[in-house]
């Protein structure tokens, strides 16, 4: 781990929105290149980046669509840079093929989705958490990704940095699953001095050209990388490939590659768990939530505690991979797990699977457009405590 370059870091205390904080996080993490296509409510991120990037030798290119944006950033990465793109629902749908390409070619890249109400054009200016399953499973075929969910502008900064670091460490596309509410909400954001911002550098091979195999995994199953223009004659393909990167279209090669793409994330799952929990010990009901919903849920939890219900909270900061082990351990100890989401019940399916019938799992769905009324969540907590 190294640390951020002070020339890119706006150290200080700011009153900015989540979109602006995300942009600053990307710059702090070392991204100087971005491609994107304007879409509400994510556009402010690239507007700010377009102004900031040239100051530090970078650029933003506004592509003709999200398909182009999501592959242009991968060209930037293979040229040796850190890069990201930013979008919302409809654009995220268009990017799906290239999320798969990034997973397959192990391109360390960050996709930011500022979620808005859907399906289709839906609610451009209003929040939802409707893309959570799409983030995990949206591209065709089997692959694993990492997805983080911030619940404040401060976390939009912190988790953007984290997203880039995880992308580099695991050579995997990382999704930053914001929503319109955190994106457009303005709060205090403290940006630390550059030397306090850890930055994971590119896992560049130490081997000379000729000895290096582009997709030969290390002990952690993650291969080191080389870029175009360095004499390595890299071969990168979306086809199933061997350790040289050469197409290898056999069931054996497919098994070896796909298992490794899964396993490199699965093996690190315990380390990737990022949760914030409170009063889990002795809780009858635990409210599990992520993103903006976690804040609203906490208000409901306070109301429930005032009524004498023993409620714990578990906030998923990293949603994918899902904290499976934690839930398996928690489920037998509680009466119910309550999960409010700004969707019709997506991540709750995973919660239910991991709870394995050991307790009740209560979904508190919401079609999006605003956040939950804490009273709805309170009612679910009360039901769970019965």
């Amino acid at each position, binding site marked *: 781990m190294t640390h951020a370059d002070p020339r890119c870091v706006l150290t200080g205390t700011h009153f900015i929105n989540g979109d602006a904080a995300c942009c600053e996080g990307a710059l702090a993490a*070392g991204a100087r290149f971005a491609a994107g296509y304007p879409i509400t409510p994510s556009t402010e991120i690239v507007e700010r980046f377009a102004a900031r990037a040239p100051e530090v030798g970078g650029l933003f290119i506004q592509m003709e669509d999200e398909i182009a944006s999501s592959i242009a950033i991968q060209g930037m990465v293979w040229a040796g840079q850190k890069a990201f793109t930013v979008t919302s629902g409809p654009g995220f749908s268009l990017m799906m093929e290239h999320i798969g390409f990034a997973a397959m070619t192990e391109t360390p890249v960050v996709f930011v989705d500022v979620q808005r109400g859907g399906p289709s054009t839906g609610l451009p200016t209003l929040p939802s958490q409707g893309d959570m399953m799409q983030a995990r499973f949206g591209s065709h075929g089997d692959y694993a990704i990492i997805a983080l969910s911030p619940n404040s502008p401060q976390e939009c900064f912190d988790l953007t940095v984290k997203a880039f670091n995880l992308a580099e460490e695991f050579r995997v596309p990382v999704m930053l699953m914001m929503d319109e509410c955190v994106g457009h909400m303005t709060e205090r954001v403290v940006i630390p001095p550059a030397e306090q911002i850890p930055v994971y550098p590119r896992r560049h091979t130490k081997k000379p050209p000729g000895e290096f195999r582009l997709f030969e995994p290390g002990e952690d199953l993650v291969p080191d990388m080389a870029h175009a223009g360095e004499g390595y004659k890299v071969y990168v393909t979306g086809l199933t490939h061997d350790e040289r990167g050469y197409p290898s279209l056999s069931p054996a090669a497919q098994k070896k590659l796909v298992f490794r793409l899964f396993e490199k994330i699965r093996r690190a799952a315990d380390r990737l768990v990022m949760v914030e929990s409170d009063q889990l010990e002795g809780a009858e009901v635990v409210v599990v939530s992520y993103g903006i919903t976690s804040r609203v849920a906490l208000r409901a939890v306070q109301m429930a505690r005032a009524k004498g219900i023993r409620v714990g909270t578990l906030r998923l900061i990293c949603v994918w991979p899902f904290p499976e082990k934690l839930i398996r351990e928690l489920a037998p100890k509680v009466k119910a797990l309550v999960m409010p989401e700004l969707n019709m019940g997506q991540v709750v399916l995973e919660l239910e699977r991991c709870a394995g019938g050991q307790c009740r799992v209560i979904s508190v769905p919401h079609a999006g457009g605003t956040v939950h009324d804490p009273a709805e969540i309170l009612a679910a907590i009360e039901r769970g405590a019965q």
Partner: protein
Amino acid sequence: MSTTDLQVHNPVEDLLRQDRIPTIWCPGCGIGTTVNSFAHALLKQDIDLNKTAIVSGIGCSGRVSGYMNLDSFHTTHGRAIPFATGLKLANPELNVIVYSGDGDLAAIGGNHLIHAARRNIDILVVCINNMIYAMTGGQAAATTPSGSLSTTSPYGSYEPELNLVQLVDAAGASFVARWTAYHVMQLERTLEKALKKKGFRFIEVLSPCPTYYQRKNNMGDALQAMLDYKKRSKIKHGCPTWETAIVPGGDIIVGEFVDREREDYLTRMRKQLGPHYSEFPPQWDEQESMGCSKEC
């Protein structure tokens, strides 16, 4: 005489990934012929092949990147150009060549083709036009001449065909040319010229697909296709691109049509940004990343 005695050094051998040969291309296919011209043109350049990247999309021509011993990127269907755009902008030192087919570049990737030409991104695009989707088994393409048979136009195509050179000319490309797989020497010279030029450069190469296009349309074998190209081609350098449409049985206008001076994307960007742009050294120098990749 042992077999090794027969081996002669092919001048373009070092430019090909020998361990990937033989190619997947059918006998009589024109793609390999164009690659030969391309390799010869590259060898005559005073450019660093370690700083030369080749990007393809999907399709028969999309496999070219994987046979070249360069930095090879075999991307998704239609998206070679936006990938190449990112590659070039993030490392302007690279010579970036896109080598792909008509279906890939002009249909599914048509919008990217237009906008890369408009932006004048400093890349060379070689578009192999075999007038059909060959990899997937001979379906009609945007370039399939009207009336042609294909597996998805069993009664003859009734869509008008797209003239690629006219399209990229109109979008603002710096250099636009067309040859056929018959014109190997001319193609090599045009490639040499295009490799030296800055800005968005587009070379269309008509190439026979004996397996699908020629066969479906009773146009004979590959040799017949070559004779056909020879007979029908008219070299007209500087010809206005609106006069270059390819119609069944008609003249095939070939040559270098457009060669104009236009500032490329990065030149315009730096000029426009002026004092707002500051050069910045790469952030992770070799030392730093090497010491860190395992320990942390």
